[in-house]
């Protein structure tokens, strides 16, 4: 079967970053915690492929380790969203029209009503800035997104005859949700997952940029940007490189999400065959 081109490009970009992260656990060109002022602000060379920053740290190594923070924060934040949001959405759909449904959905509205970054700042301001708090802050805002998407997709399935057949077979709502509903809405969730993943990377970069994310010496793309801000006219490379990394990672994930949506939609798949 032919995969859509954008899925290939998106997947390629994403795989590139994941490989960089995996590699960074075993090897980076230089140690990112060692400062060497004598080597500061070197242009790209064979020794430092992407040059060095104002503390003499190797930019390539920084980007590799920074990707670790970005991707870890985004994965766990999406995980929180899926782990709490999907069951809530399934529960609401199974009890559609009931008080429970109303409570869950209005609870979602409540979370939606606050600007996410402001709450993230509040959480980090109260509990102190750290990668863990950034994850929590971003993760909480993923919950209503997944709850809504799940409920919407599940509701349309609950009216189908095969769900009725499962009910005639004496299956309860929980079992029907797991056996019939969840597998049939998985494609929607996967697509939403990749989109939330890219939003998570952006949010982490945003929080780190304002100093509420990962703390030094852990490198992060957002903080590299913030640090480079003052040198943007003298050494634009320091800002461009992490910026480019964020753009490419987000672009890759969005392309992958779009491609997956087209690929997993059975109606579109039939058209391709």
């Amino acid at each position, binding site marked *: 079967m032919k995969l859509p081109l954008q899925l290939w490009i998106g997947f390629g970009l994403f795989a590139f970053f994941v490989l960089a992260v995996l590699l960074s656990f075993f090897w980076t060109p230089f140690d990112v915690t060692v400062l060497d002022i004598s080597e500061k602000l070197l242009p790209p060379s064979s020794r430092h492929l992407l040059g060095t920053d104002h503390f003499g740290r190797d930019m390539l190594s920084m980007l590799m380790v920074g990707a670790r923070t970005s991707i870890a924060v985004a994965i766990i934040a999406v995980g929180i969203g899926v782990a709490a949001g999907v069951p809530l959405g399934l529960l609401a759909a199974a009890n559609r029209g009931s008080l429970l449904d109303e409570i869950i959905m209005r609870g979602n509205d409540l979370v939606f009503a606050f600007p996410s970054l402001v709450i993230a700042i509040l959480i980090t301001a109260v509990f102190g800035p750290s990668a863990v708090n950034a994850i929590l802050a971003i993760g909480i805002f993923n919950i209503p997104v997944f709850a809504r998407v799940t409920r919407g997709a599940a509701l349309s399935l609950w009216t189908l005859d095969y769900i009725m057949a499962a*009910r005639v077979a004496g299956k309860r709502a929980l079992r029907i949700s797991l056996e019939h509903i969840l597998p049939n809405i998985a494609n929607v969730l996967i697509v939403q997952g990749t989109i939330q993943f890219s939003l998570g990377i952006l949010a982490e970069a945003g929080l780190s940029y304002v100093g509420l994310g990962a703390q030094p010496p852990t490198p992060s793309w957002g903080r590299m940007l913030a640090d480079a801000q003052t040198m943007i006219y003298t050494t634009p490379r320091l800002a461009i490189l992490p910026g480019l990394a964020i753009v490419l990672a987000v672009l890759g994930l969005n392309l992958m999400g779009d491609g997956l949506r087209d690929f997993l939609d059975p109606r579109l798949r039939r058209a391709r065959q």
Partner: protein
Amino acid sequence: MIEIHDLTLDIHGTGILHDVSLTIGAAEVFGLVGESGSGKSMTALAMMRLLPEGARASGQILLNDTNLLALSEAEMCDLRGREIGMIFQEPMTALNPVRTIGDQVAETLLVHGRASRKEALVIAAEKLARVGLPPEDVPLDRYPHELSGGQRQRVSIALAIALRPRLLIADEPTTALDVTTQAQILALLKGLVAEEGMSLLLITHDLAVVAGMADHVAVMQNGKIVEQAPTEQLFTQMKQPYTRQLFEASHHQPDRRVTARSEPLLSVENAQRNYRLPGISLFGKTPVFQAVKDVSFTICKGESLGLVGESGCGKSTLSRAILGLEPLQGGRIVMDGKEVQAGVHMPAELRRKMQVVFQDPYGSFDPRWKVSDLIGEPFHLLEAPPQNREERICEALENVGMPIDCGDRYIHEFSGGQRQRIAIARALVLHPELVILDEAVSALDVSIRAQILDLLADLQARLDLAYLFISHDLNVVKAITDRVLVMKAGEIVEAGTTQQVFDAPQHPYTRTLLKAAPQIPRAWRKEHHA
């Protein structure tokens, strides 16, 4: 008036139509009959030049000596609606839901530059009155969702005839409608042909409909016209075996052995089912819709009971209550001596005794499950999965005449008729005593329907089943049931043996229903059977 010569059509290289030739005369009703996939709709779309992407047509479609296949798209746009109008099957989706009906009818006139906006609305009002929607009853500023299915189909017709086209194409115009509404719409179309002098191409799967409507009939199969003749000649002669086969299938009487005994199996006693309506006021009483009002009846062991009624009469609601999926607000349902409880309170051994087959062969199965798992799903009602699970699934497949090796395949690999067999297999796997067939053959082509009816009759005799056969199709109910209940607006208005009800209907509603159902004239049928 319009002539098609050797129309051949393929889509992405797959042959769809082969050398289709037909001639429709002025002020004539031409019936085009065939089963799904026979190419009848494609012929109509070719005439409108509204073919799907990748379609290549050759041959000639002559409308007053102009070959439509040679016209440019701009010329076709001018012609569509003005010379040829079209009505579609689904009145729900054929109208734009966010525009008023007056606007939509007037639009055709505006597009063709035939009138100013003001004049167009006046003409729209006239046309809507002509199709039976006078502005004093149905104002022009109504939206489609405020109308019933039949009224919507009338709006579609008004739209199609707004410019007085010379040819009107009606593609299954009454398939989605109830019998009484169908009779009204067909009468309207017939009247339009007579009064406005336009020709009508009536596409349908129902031989009885064309018998009552058409001057000329063509029968299509696999993209070819197998037989065409003036209607009476076609029905009395039936030169082609396929025509005869279609005709016989539409009147198919399965061989039935009476298996009904006098022991009651299921009894429904004064059942009531109410729905809360939306639009609640905070303190006022919630408005309630009574879907089932005080219904009582009994099904005996081995009996086949028909439940007839038009859409919205409460027959499906009743079936859900019997299956213990929805609670009753009054009365009770007793199955084999035990009372049916809705939801999780219903004991599994009671649920095991009744199973159901639904109408839509496409929506009845989880697309991600294998056939053997789908059929085995009711095993959930047993304490533990049976030791001989595979064997029992094979037995169920054999019972419905499916090869036993299809258990490893997915449902999308099967046709509609095969899926319905699999649905029956799923219903039989637990050896139930009662099977509820909710419009179980309504979505099938006549020849497939005949096979499924045979299968159901055979299964009933072999497995000692009782059926509750819910349908709007009187012919089918007549063929497969011992007794019939006629339901209207949540009440049972007539009950009796099938023969009694069909031969000597007592209630006026039953009489209306029977009269509205299209029939092939008796004289034509006799000659053929002789």
